[in-house]
Structures are given as C-alpha cells and as structure tokens.
C-alpha cells in the first residue's frame, strides 16, 4: 500500500507534504527524550516489517503495522512512521519520493487514531488489552486503505471502487495484523507493561524533560 510518483495531483502532493511536516513536528515536539530509544526500536520494526512477506494463497502480502506503532508510541507514532517511510522510499524504492507526504499521511493518521483508540479503551485486564490491541491493529490497516482510496479519489479515481478494491485486497493483512498486534500487546502487557503507556492521553511531564 504505497502511492507511487506522479499518481496524485500536485496540490495534493504539496498539501500532503505540508500536513505531514506539521504533524511530524508536532509529534517530535511531544516526544520525550526518555522515550527516544523506544521510538527508535519501534521505528526500525516498522521499517523492516514491510519486508516480511507472508505467503497467502496465490499471492503474498506484507505487514504494515500502523496499529501496533500507534498503540506503542502514541503521539510519537507519526514521527516514527514518517522516518520509516522516508528511509523505505530512499533505500527500497517503496513509494515515490514526491508522494512521501501523502504516504506518511496515509499510514500516520491511522497510527495516531489507533494510538488514541488503544489508550482510551484498553482497560486494565490483559484480555481486554489484547482485544483492543488486536482491534486497533486491524483498524490501522483498514483506515490506511480508506485513506489510500480518499487520496486516489483526488487523482480522479472513483472513491468507492478504489476503497472496495483496497479493502478486499488487504483483508488478509488486516486479519494477520490484528492477530499479530493482539499477540504483541498481550506479550508486552505481561513482560513490560510500561511499553504500552505512551505519553498520548496525559503526558506525564513536559516535552523534552
């Protein structure tokens, strides 16, 4: 799920860059320096995840992980995804460099939403956390597909047609990501629960403190 060069109209390309830059700087300002190692590790996991191809029937799908990144990083997720996508487009030619802004919006907004969703509804029991984690993992990919359709609709495509195709094509990814995020959240909740406490809802300290 990457948009290539030259697909989007120029206004959307520029607008995507401006919106992503604003959100990324907001995200960077909200990142506390004690969280930097965690953000770095999750960013590299996100960067590598899209290389893991899961064979599924005649085709193969790859992970995207916006839901997990959002659940673990909260506000910092946008910065993380922006950096991961920048390096992916530079090193792997995944998505064009001009479409980077739009691509970052497409994956970063679901991550922010999933982070908020996870933090708000995660509850206290581990079963509840796992369920909500799995839901946010699935929701992240589904939302990314919808935003992809929205962005492509600005390039003159039919929104509902593209949305339908993108969602159907990503049903396996959505299922796999839901399961994977639920498993990861359950594991982290048991082993290191403080990793699931991003400074998203109530920042426990001033930024860069």
């Amino acid at each position: 799920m990457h948009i290539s060069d030259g697909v989007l109209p120029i206004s959307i390309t520029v607008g995507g860059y401006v919106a992503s830059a604003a959100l990324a700087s907001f995200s960077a300002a909200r990142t506390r320096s004690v969280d930097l190692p965690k953000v770095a590790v999750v960013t590299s996991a996100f960067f590598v995840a899209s290389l893991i191809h899961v064979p599924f029937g005649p085709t193969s799908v790859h992970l995207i992980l916006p839901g997990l990144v959002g659940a673990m990083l909260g506000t910092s997720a946008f910065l993380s995804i922006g950096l991961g996508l920048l390096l992916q487009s530079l090193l792997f030619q995944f998505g064009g460099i001009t479409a980077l802004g739009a691509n970052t919006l497409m994956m970063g907004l679901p991550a922010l939403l999933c982070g908020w969703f996870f933090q708000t509804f995660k509850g206290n029991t581990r079963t509840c956390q796992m369920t909500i984690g799995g839901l946010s993992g699935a929701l992240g990919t589904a939302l990314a597909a919808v935003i992809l359709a929205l962005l492509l609709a600005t390039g003159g495509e039919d929104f509902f047609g593209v949305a339908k195709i993108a969602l159907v094509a990503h049903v396996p990814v959505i299922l796999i990501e839901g399961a994977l995020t639920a498993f990861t959240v359950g594991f982290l909740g048991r082993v290191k629960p403080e990793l699931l406490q991003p400074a998203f809802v109530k920042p426990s300290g001033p930024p860069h403190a």
Partner: protein
Amino acid sequence: MMRFPKVLIVGGLSAWLMTFPVSAAAQAPAAEYAPELVTLLKEQTGKLSGDLRHIQREIAALRADLEKPGFRDIFSGIGYIFGLFGVAAFVASRRKE
C-alpha cells in the same frame, strides 16, 4: 587443385580481418565449401543464439533481483534510524544541561 586452398586462405583472412566478410562470401559461393562446414556453422550459430537467450534471461532475473532490497539496504536503514535517534537523544541531553 590450387583453387581450393586459395579460397580457404581468402576466407580465413577475411574472417580474421572481419572487414570484408560479405565480399569474400560473394567471391566464394557457399556450394564450394564442404556441406559439413555449412551445417557445422549453422549448428554453432543455433547453439550460440540459444546460449545468448539463456544469458539474456539470466540478466533479466538478475535485474529483478536487484530491484528487491537486500540485506545491505535493510541494515543500513536500521542503522540510519538508530543513528538519527541517537543524535536526537544527544541533542536532547545537551539541552537539558
């Protein structure tokens, strides 16, 4: 009797020089060569073009492989990420002092 080696010499020279192969072929009609030579050449040409096709296919496969990110790309990306966050942590720690 004297003509046959002359033709051979001319043909060999022209093949060696690679500059007048057409004129040499025109001077010596193909029928005057031994028919085995012609079939041999045809065989070799066929084998060579088969080999060439094989190599072209190999090159296409290699090019497709090159498009895929390799281990070097993956690790350099991870290195970039850790390095950039390391710089960020350094700047943040300097600011705190």
